[in-house]
């Protein structure tokens, strides 16, 4: 276009020179040339504007070339940068006792925020912070807790360690306690009263796994403090170990505990496993009447998920040794230290309906547990009677809006203490 413009100007100049003899004609031609130049200037300006507009409308060129896309190379196998990711879960529940509706409660039972920070491909930090019952202050019932805080180190592809505050590998629920991972509004009684979920200790854990589907855990950690036992309260009847756990809150650590777990997942849909935890609980407390008391807890568990069915169960049993001398000092109080306690449950669920990410799964669970099954023999008929074994039927429905959001409802029927029969509603989430 520029060449055309120059040619037109040159041609016009030659033409003007050839007829320079007639001043009037020359003036007219100069005027025409001026008009033509103005028109050409306008055309050039218009073209420039169009070009600029077109450049603005065109998609920006990528700053970097996607090598993987362009050449078919593999995506980067390892993101060797420090990285922090956030996660969390929560559950908000409604409990309505059917025989005493005045005790109906609604509760922001748990809101948990966590983060992982990875320094490199073998070292990371995992932290989980939890608020229970919405408000925490000296006048409120809520709690704020550090639920997990540990450094994980990957020794090799099949061996790793955790150092810090971590969940004890026991049962089905303790390490996988997010509301989307279990059926029913509240966690089952066995893995609350006997295994004190969410149970964590401070220490060192070694984890190993094999491609066959076998995995194992072993470690040493803080344990229980039996000197915390409050015989005047019924807390020890609700959960013997839940009442004396320390949660790494200025934990007494003279007596450390040992633990181990083994699980097999080598057949798709199948899990079978067992675990053991044992340690002394006197913690060197001066003048404590049970300095050699030892707490031992073990469990066996299994789960079978063939397609739409989900069937699972667990048996657990706890023992506290050398409690007689302690209980003698506590006679007359409502809650003495049990020597043995146990619990088991079986449960089944069936995915009845699903559409896209939504699904509805009714479930049924029966559990039996006893937090005071046996007591150490005391002299002169002072041995307390064993507590009755409680049995609970729970029937309900988990409705998943998507795999990370669940609405729940259930009804719980107690065999011994029927005043606890209740109807529950809840919503849970995980991200």
């Amino acid at each position: 276009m520029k060449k055309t413009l120059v040619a037109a100007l040159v041609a016009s100049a030659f033409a003007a020179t050839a007829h320079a003899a007639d001043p009037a004609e020359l003036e007219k031609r100069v005027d025409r040339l001026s008009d033509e130049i103005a028109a050409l200037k306008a055309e050039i300006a218009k073209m420039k504007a169009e070009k600029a507009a077109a450049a603005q409308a065109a998609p920006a060129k990528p700053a970097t070339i996607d090598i993987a896309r362009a050449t078919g190379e593999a995506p980067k196998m390892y993101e060797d940068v420090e990285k922090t990711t956030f996660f969390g879960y929560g559950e908000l529940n409604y409990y309505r006792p059917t025989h005493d509706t005045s005790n109906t409660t609604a509760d922001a039972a748990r809101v948990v925020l966590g983060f992982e920070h990875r320094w490199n491909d073998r070292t990371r930090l995992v932290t989980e912070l939890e608020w229970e019952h919405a408000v925490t202050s000296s006048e409120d019932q809520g709690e704020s807790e550090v639920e997990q805080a540990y450094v994980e180190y990957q020794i090799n592809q099949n061996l790793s360690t955790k150092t810090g505050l971590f969940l004890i590998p026991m049962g089905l629920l303790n390490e996988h306690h997010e509301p989307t991972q279990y059926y029913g509004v509240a966690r089952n009684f066995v893995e609350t009263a006997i295994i004190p979920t969410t149970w964590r200790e401070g220490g060192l854990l070694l984890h190993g796994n094999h491609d066959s589907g076998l995995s194992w855990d072993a470690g040493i950690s803080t344990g229980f403090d039996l000197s915390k036992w409050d015989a005047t309260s019924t807390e020890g009847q609700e959960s013997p170990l839940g009442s004396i756990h320390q949660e790494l809150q200025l934990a007494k650590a003279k007596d450390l505990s040992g633990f181990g777990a083994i699980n097999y997942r080598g057949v798709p849909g199948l899990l079978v496993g067992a675990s053991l935890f044992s340690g002394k609980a006197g913690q060197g407390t001066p003048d404590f009447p049970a300095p050699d008391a030892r707490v031992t807890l073990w469990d066996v568990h299994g789960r079978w998920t063939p397609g739409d069915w989900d069937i699972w169960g667990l048996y657990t049993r706890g023992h506290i040794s050398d409690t007689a001398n302690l209980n003698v000092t506590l006679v007359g109080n409502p809650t003495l230290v049990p020597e043995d306690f146990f619990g088991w449950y079986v449960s089944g669920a069936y995915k009845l309906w699903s559409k896209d990410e939504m699904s509805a799964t009714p479930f049924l669970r029966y559990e039996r547990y006893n937090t005071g099954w046996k007591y150490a023999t005391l002299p002169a008929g002072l041995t307390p009677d064993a507590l009755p074994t409680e049995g609970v039927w729970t029937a309900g429905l988990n409705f998943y809006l998507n795999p990370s959001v669940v609405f729940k409802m259930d009804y719980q029927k107690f065999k011994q203490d029927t005043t606890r029969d209740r109807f529950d509603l809840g919503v849970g989430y995980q991200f």
Partner: protein
Amino acid sequence: MRKRTGTSAWFLVPVALVAPAPAGATQYLKVEDAQKLAFPQADAFTPFAYAPTPEQRAAVDQAAHARATAGDPAIWRVTAAGQPMGWFIVDNVIGKVEHITYAVALGRDAAVRSLEILDYRETHGYEVRNAAWRRQFDGKSAHTPLEFGDDIKNISGATLSCRHLTDGVRRLLAIQDLVLR
């Protein structure tokens, strides 16, 4: 003498635990090794530049009925003596918070020949490496059902990894069916 040797060996245990491990603590298989494992007879893996049109991308999304979580895959056309053998695809999905890098080999019939986990970085859920679980994908194609829970059984404690890998493989099969053929 024998007793003393045994005692010395025990002292080496903590040393072994803290000693630097070989590179790639979370990397289980390199791409080249996974290629040879999946197609031992192949003599060429030719990179294929995956650049679907917007229409193809929409069709893949619809067929996969799962959200893409970690970008586009890397794809190779596999041949032996000039004859096509299938496709080899490396992809990422999110487990819980980290990427899982995995490879899927598709035969000439467009069905899954193998699924391998190349890199697993999560704290939990590594059980998806189990061979028996991965074998559930063998023979699956874009025209056979591939739903988590129904066709691919769960691993208790590794639900998110199992679900997201199933979604990822379904997406790769849709890509093969709608873009690569």
